[in-house]
Structure formats: C-alpha cells, structure tokens
C-alpha cells in the first residue's frame, strides 16, 4: 500500500518533468485553439452534439408515439400537425426520425464502448507481453481488418440470431422467466456485438503501437527502475500519451458504427421493425420514391448529414491533436 503510494508520487515528479516545455499553454488548450480555427470541424461537432442531444431527449419531445399508425392519414406532406409528414402507415415521420436517432446513438455508444474495452485490453496485452500471443492476436486482427467489414457483420448477424433466439426460447420453456420472452432488445445486442467484433482490431493496433513506442521512452525506463508496476505505467504513461490518437479513433469508430447500423437496417438485417432506424426508414421510403420522395429524402439527408459531420469532426480532431502536422 505504502509502496504504491510512494511510486505514484515519484512518477508524478517524472510526469511534471516531461510536461515541462517552457510554454504557458498546455497540450489540450493548444489543441482546442487549433480545433476552433477549423470551422468545418466545429460545424461537425455542433451537428454531432445535436444528434446526441436529440437521441437523448428526442423520444420525450416527439409529438406522437413512433409506433402510432393512422391509415387514414398515410402519405401526408409536411403540415403543422405532422412536421415532416407521415409514412405509408400514417406514422409521424418526425417522431420516427427522433426514435431512429436514439437507435443510432445507442448502437454507436455501446459498440464503441465494447470495442474500446476489447481493443485496449488486447492492445496493451500484445504490446507488453509480445511473443506468440501477440503474433496470434495481431494475425487475427489483420484478418478481420482485411475482410470487408460489412460482409462480416452481415454473416454474424444472420447466423447468430436464430440460435440465440432458440436458446432463449428453450430457457423460457425451462424457467418460465418472462425475461427470456422479450427478444426485442436482442436485435440491439446482436448489432452491438457484430459491430464491436470488427471495431476492436483497429483500436488494438493503435494501443499496441503506442505501448511499444512509449515503452522505449526514458521516463518509462526511469519509472520502471523505481519499481513502478506495469499497470501503473499503463495508466500514468501509456494511456495519457495515447489519448489523442484514441479520441480520433473513437470518434471515427462512432461515426462508423452509426453508418454500419444504418447499412444493416437498410439491407433489412439490422434493427427490425417495429423499432425505428434511419436505415430501415430509408429502405421503406425507397419503395415510394417516385411518388412521395420526401419519405426517402428525409432519412437520406439525415444519414448523410450525420456522416459528413462525424468525418469532418474526426478530421478536425486529427489535425488538432497531432501537433507534428502543424509544424
């Protein structure tokens, strides 16, 4: 206990020494200043924040239930009553879009968290221990990265659904626990896990690279000589140094997850009806595109806008957090 406290103190001195660069601003203020100058990135950030905000509060401000059908009012255009019109079943498009935002944000959030955990664990393990395990893990991640991600996700999603549903059915038969009867959220779990499976290799490679390069630094050698544990070196030195690239990668990963969720639902194998997803709304709208183009246009423009926002945000973060580029 006392030894751990002691080593923390010593490495803090080392840390302060390494931060010393003669300037007044710190790294993050510097990055924020660079980021603010890039107005495309700031606009991207605004759109992404708006998207996350709508996902959070959207279903509470939605004027209608996203499932409420009214055949008499199908295919209406924009009106005071229905802000963005109604779809083929007379459902309010605006409310469904808000619900779709929640779907997309949920998928983005959980996919990123899961792939971040796997990626950081595998990356640090590989970077620290090396050897055969490292080679094997990197071979697997190379394989996953070499495959077309969408194809992999489709395969996983279609093949895992049935056995899991069957398994839950049999669990219900045995236990009569109503928990196993509700399989609505299974879609989400399947999409999360499939997307996380193709998301972790990039993060693992990134973390591994950082571990390897930072391990060479003198201050890490010094910390190690003073008896710091591997976990301590990871938390105090490697992760803070890797934070910039990780933020960029996580932003890109979130955008990618939103895109893949929309792609899957567009192909009809992601989030299933009656749950609302932008991808499935686009696919449904495509059936009527020559007569009621707005049903296709609204989800299409939204997906496009959010994707562009994520890409410009990621690009701006990349420029801001990588000072070498600026010189």
């Amino acid at each position: 206990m006392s030894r751990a406290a002691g080593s923390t103190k010593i490495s803090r001195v080392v840390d302060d020494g390494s931060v010393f660069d003669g300037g007044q601003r710190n790294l993050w203020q510097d990055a924020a200043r660079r980021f603010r100058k890039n107005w495309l990135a700031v606009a991207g950030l605004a759109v992404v924040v708006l998207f996350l905000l709508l996902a959070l509060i959207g279903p509470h401000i939605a004027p209608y239930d996203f499932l409420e059908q009214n055949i008499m009012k199908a295919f209406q255009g924009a009106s005071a009553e229905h802000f963005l019109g109604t779809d083929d079943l007379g459902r309010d498009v605006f409310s469904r879009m808000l619900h779709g935002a929640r779907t997309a944000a949920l998928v983005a959030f959980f996919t990123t968290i899961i792939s971040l955990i796997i990626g950081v664990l595998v990356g640090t393990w590989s970077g620290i221990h090396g050897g055969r395990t490292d080679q094997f893990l990197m071979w697997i991640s190379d394989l996953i990265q070499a495959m077309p991600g969408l194809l992999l996700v489709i395969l996983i999603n279609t093949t895992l659904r049935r056995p899991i549903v069957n398994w839950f059915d049999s669990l219900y038969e045995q236990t009569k626990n109503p928990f196993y009867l509700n399989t609505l959220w299974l879609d989400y779990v399947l999409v999360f896990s499939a997307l996380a499976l193709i998301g972790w290799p990039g993060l693992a490679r990134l973390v591994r690279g950082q571990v390897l390069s930072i391990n060479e630094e003198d201050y890490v050698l010094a910390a190690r000589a003073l008896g710091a544990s591997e976990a301590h070196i990871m938390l105090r030195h490697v992760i803070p140094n890797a934070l910039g690239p990780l933020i960029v990668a996580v932003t890109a990963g979130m955008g990618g997850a939103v895109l893949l969720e929309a792609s899957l639902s567009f192909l009809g194998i992601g989030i299933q009806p009656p749950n609302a997803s932008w991808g499935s709304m686009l696919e449904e709208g495509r059936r009527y595109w020559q007569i009621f183009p707005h049903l296709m246009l609204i989800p299409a423009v939204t997906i496009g806008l959010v994707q562009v926002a994520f890409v410009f945000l990621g690009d701006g973060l990349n420029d801001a957090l990588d000072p070498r580029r600026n010189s």
Partner: protein
Amino acid sequence: MASFLLIRLLRWSAGLLLILFVTYAMMYYGAGDPIRMMFIQGEDFDSTDEAVMRALRAKYGLDEPFLVQFGNYLNKLFQGDWGRSIRLQVDRPVLEIVKFRLPISMQLGFAATAIAAVVGVALGVFAALYHNRWLDRLIVSTVLFVTSIPIFVIGPMLLLLLVLILKWIDVPYGWNGLFHIDAALPVAVISIGPLPGIVRQTRSAMLEVKGQQYVTTARAKGVPEAQIITRHMLRPVMTPVITTLGLIMIALINGSLFVELIYNIPGFGLLTIEGIRKVDYPIIMAVAVVGTLIIFISNFLVDMIYPILDPRVRVQ
C-alpha cells in the same frame, strides 16, 4: 525473396482456412436445419414426414459429425462442387449461379476502379501541385465531403436528382451490359468508394516526390513541366497507390452490395443480399468464400508486386 512470398502465401492460406471454418461453423450452428429449410413453404412445413427428412439428411451427408461435414465441404469445394441452392433458385448448382453473377459485378468493379484511378490520381496530383493553396483545400475537402456520404444515400439521391428533377435519364433497371446507359449511374456511384484512398495516397506521395533532387535536375535541364509530372513523378507515386488494392477491393465489394440492390442489378452483391435474406446457406458459404478469396488474392498480389515496384523492399 521466395521464402518471403512463401511465408506470405502460407499466412494468407491459413487465414482463408480459418475464415472458411468460422463461416461454416456459423452456418452449421446458426442457419438452422437445411433439409427443413428446403421444405418451408408457407406454414405447412410441419407436415413433412420426419422419416423422409432423415433419409434426405443421410443422402446429403448431413447426419455426419460437424468436422466430417466440414472436411467433406472443403473436399468438394476444391473439386468444383459448391453445393446446390436450397431456396433462392432451388437445386441449381451454386457454382453455376456464381459464374453467372460474379462477372457482372466484376465488370462494374473494373469500370469503377478505372474511373476512380484516373479521377483520383488526377485530383491527387493537382492537390499536391497546388499544395496548401485554395485548389488543394477545395479538392481535399470536396473528396472528404462526397465520400463521407454513404453509398446507399448517394445512390437514391442521384436517382431523385437525375430522374425526377432533371429528367436526364430513365430509371436504370437491371443489367443490359456494361456499355448500356443503365450501367453509367451504378458505375459512377461505385467509383466513389475507392476514391478517397487513391486521392490521399497520390497527394501525399506527390508531396514527397516534389522536393526530390532528380525532379529539380530535370527542371534545370529544361524538361517541360508536364513531362516531369508524367515521367519523373508519377511512377514513384503509383507504388503506394497500388498497395491500397486491398482497400479498393473492400470498397468495391461494399459498393456492389448497395448499388446492385438499389439499381436491381443481378450481380454478386445482390446474390449476397438475396442469399442472406432467404438464409440459403450454400449461397452464403459461396459468397463468403469468393469474397474472402478476392480480398486475399488482392492482398497477396500487393505483397508480390510491391518488391517489383519498390526495389528498397527487396532488401529486407
């Protein structure tokens, strides 16, 4: 050199085998009983005689243990027997379907790659020549903008624009050969996928080459600027561009999935979607095999071509 290639070949082959195994396992445990699937017609599949199903299962070797089945599958795969479709086009050999569908997608893919390569290299060269000036910024941010919009958004939006608003073309439908007007829009949309990688690679490689001394020498000798670009600069620039072939192929496969669905082209991408929607597991297996093969062959090709293009790699 030879041992380098051999190791690469072994690595990619082992990878291919692993992916085949995982896919087969997923199909085996996930796709459900194929014999039962064959008889699903509406709701009355329960009426099928259990004894008949058992006999059929024995006939197709589906009562064997998992590993035996996988071995049999691999064995037949190499002999050109890829099984028969069980739901999409019942009883038609899968290899025959693939042989019909794949060339369509490959034509689309090659045309799209050609367009993406020409446009992408040109944009990359211009961006590098006007480095940090407005043309550079315009090219970089326009490419970033266009390519960040998903294909399944661009495809329908272009339909809307060209068919409904501008009325330039009729709705493209089906496959009438690569040189029919209906193929123009699909090819254009697919070519967007690989574009950003090509532009980025060309631009950064050009920037690196621009400052080289042999370029200055050529300029000092009075070689015309256009000739300097095409003769002296483009060859070293092409090397990193070609190494992105694997990524280009991924973009093409992704593109063909959506484009063929949107424009109703009976290619490999549409086969993938149809096979998966109908859970036609021999088709899904075939799609996974071919898709993986395409990716691995192109990665292996890059490994082989790279030392030829860049002599520095050979030393290692």
